[in-house]
Structures are given as structure tokens and as C-alpha cells.
């Protein structure tokens, strides 16, 4: 406990203050949003780097992760609707990685207890690419992928 405290104190006054306030219950749920943002993962330039940065290592393929109602073709890569549902028990988090994007890691969601392990959102895709759903369940990592083609419509419409 002593060591941890020293480490926390060493890492900067801001973090300590935050921790103290959190412990004292002075922070509302909204304030908790000023929490960690995994810079290393979000700035990773390769799929492997991104997966490793979120702690994934070598995830196992899983047929229990599904892309639900996610179209094979996106008319415009600026908005690609993706819904990922995990049937893996004790799903803790779901992350979306887009292989050919300059920003590979699109998002990571913490599935808190009581929340269904299914997330719908919209991502940007620079070009046709494999999209990976990386799920952490019961401490282990799993992955599934889907190819989504991106096309530009013509003019109009």
C-alpha cells in the first residue's frame, strides 16, 4: 500500500487529486469521463500494435462475436453503421478496429455489469477494409472480422 501511494504521488499531483476526490465521492459520474484515454492504442499504426496496446496480445477467433445488421457495402465511408454483439459469457469490453484506416482503433467500450454486450455505432472508413471486433471476455481476448466495401455513389440522390 505504501509503495502504491508513492507511485501515485510520483505520477503527478493531478492524478492524486483525482483519486482522492473519487475516493471521497466528490466526483459525479460525469466527472469520471475525465479518465484515461489510451493514446498508445489510438495512435497505433498497425493492427497488431493497436491490439497489443489495448492488451489483446493474440486474440482467439470466435464465432460468438457477430456483426449484426452491418451492411457489406457502405455507400459513403464517412458514415458506416456497425453493430457488434458478443455472445461470449462475461464480456467486459468490445473494441472496433479498422485495418486500412490511418486511425486503426476506432473505439473501445467497457461493458459494465448489467449492460448487454452489444454496441451499435457509426465509424469512418477511408477505403474498403476488414473491420475487427475485439472482445475481452472473462479476462481473455477474442476477435471476429467482416469485410466492408466502401464506395462513392455518383452525384445526386
Amino acid at each position, binding site marked *: 500500500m505504501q509503495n502504491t501511494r508513492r507511485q501515485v504521488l510520483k505520477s503527478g499531483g493531478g492524478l492524486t487529486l483525482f483519486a482522492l476526490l473519487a475516493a471521497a465521492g466528490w466526483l459525479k459520474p*460525469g466527472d*469520471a*469521463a475525465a479518465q484515461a484515454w489510451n493514446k498508445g492504442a489510438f495512435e497505433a499504426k498497425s493492427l497488431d500494435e493497436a491490439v497489443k496496446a489495448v492488451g489483446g496480445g493474440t486474440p482467439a477467433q470466435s464465432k460468438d462475436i457477430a456483426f449484426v445488421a452491418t451492411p457489406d457495402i457502405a455507400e459513403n465511408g464517412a458514415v458506416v453503421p456497425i453493430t457488434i454483439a458478443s455472445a461470449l459469457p462475461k464480456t467486459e469490453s468490445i473494441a472496433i478496429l479498422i485495418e486500412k484506416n490511418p486511425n486503426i482503433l476506432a473505439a473501445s*467500450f467497457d461493458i459494465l455489469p448489467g*449492460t448487454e454486450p*452489444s*454496441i451499435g455505432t457509426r*465509424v*469512418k472508413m477511408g477505403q474498403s477494409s476488414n473491420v475487427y471486433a475485439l472482445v475481452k471476455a472473462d479476462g481473455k481476448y477474442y476477435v471476429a472480422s467482416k469485410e466492408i466495401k466502401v464506395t462513392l455513389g455518383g452525384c445526386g440522390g
Partner: protein
Amino acid sequence: MADPMKIRANVVGDSTEVKVLMSHEMETGQRKDAQGKTIPAWFIQNVTVAHNGKPVLNAQWGPAIAKNPFLSFKFKGGAKGDKIEITWVDSRGEKRTDEAVIA
């Protein structure tokens, strides 16, 4: 001050379905303006959703989330009249919190 979010929260069976639309540029930092200068990245980094004060979802986002982001998910429980509070914080440190009531 950013535009308010549009939050819809509905009871579906024994769960609550939350759908939210946020107003945000989600600038990637890849684009250039008419003069050829790179438009700096500016995007939502953290999202938290709370039900009656209890967090139900935390998310970390990168600029690959689409502009004017949409998010949809479900959690067990929740009753009509309960409060849903959603907060986002972006890469400039700006934040926005909006509330809705479960219908």
C-alpha cells in the same frame, strides 16, 4: 458551447435501450483546408452513460468515429421515469452533459 445531444431511452422488455445522437465534428486531423493547411484533430475521446447516477457504459473513442456520432446499446433494468445522463469529453477538454428520462 456544443449543441445538445438527442437522447432516446426506452424500456424494451426487462431492459432499457439507449440511443443517442451527438453533435460533434469528430475531425480526424487528416483533412486539409483550402489553403493546404492540415485541419487539427478534434474529437470526442470519452463517453460515459449513467442510469440514476450509476455508470452503465464507458467508452473511449478515436477520430474514426463518424461525425455527429450515434451510439446505441441496452442495459438490464431501468424503469419509466428513471434518469439517463450522458457525458462526453473531447480532445480539446471540452465537455457536454445531457440528460433524458426513460420513456
